């Protein structure tokens, strides 16, 4: 599925637009060092860690998009950085597992 297809799911709200890319899997983790080492490129990364470093890790690992779960609070610097890096960021009120499952079932 494409990143833009996620926007058609009512559970997800797009916070920053990006270049179109394919989602090839789902990855869940909140510890940035683990995500840095393990997030597969092309995956949708579901996390509650919502700071500007999340974007740095996403960019370096080439994930397809970030999904901020549990309705976590995030600041505007995260969105600014997402625009700069061209990475799509979604938010959802779903818990991490449910969000990941929903993406996985839509792949």
């Amino acid at each position, binding site marked *: 599925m494409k990143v833009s297809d996620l926007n058609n799911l009512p559970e997800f709200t797009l916070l920053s637009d990006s270049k179109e890319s394919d989602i090839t899997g789902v990855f869940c983790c909140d510890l940035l*060092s683990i995500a840095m080492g393990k997030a597969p*490129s092309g995956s949708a990364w579901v996390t509650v860690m919502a700071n*500007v*470093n999340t974007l*740095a890790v996403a960019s*370096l*690992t080439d994930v397809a998009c970030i999904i901020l779960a549990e309705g976590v609070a995030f600041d505007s610097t995260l969105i600014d950085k997402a625009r700069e*890096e061209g990475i799509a960021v979604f938010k959802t009120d779903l818990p991490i597992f449910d969000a990941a499952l929903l993406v996985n079932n839509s792949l």
Partner: protein
Amino acid sequence: MSELMELNYTVSNEDFTRAGEASSDVKKKLKQLGVSPDAIRKVAIALYEGEINMIIHAYGGKIKVTISENEITLILADKGPGIADIDKAMQAGYSTAPDKVRSLGFGAGMGLPNMKKNSDKMDIQTEIGVGTTVTMVINI
């Protein structure tokens, strides 16, 4: 071995918002040079972890990246407190990071193990109260 390019960066103290700038820039340059995605990913991970360590554990530092035909060399030098026990520091899960840093998602004690795993050669020179220099080589 012929050297194609040398890149230098300064990592500033305690500036988490800028962490990863050097790694992103190196990643872009390697892409332009046509280096394989696999090698680029290794460099990005190794360099980012090193960058973060200089911010969390030292007071910032300097990074020198040398790209030659067959390998990429990353040298990260800081004038931080040094590492008392390298073997311990290399263990997965060992971390002295403060709570403030953990709340940002760092301090899982995976940095040095990630750096080791993603480089073909890694060397740490450290002296208490003087600083630490980590050298990593990634074959391309």
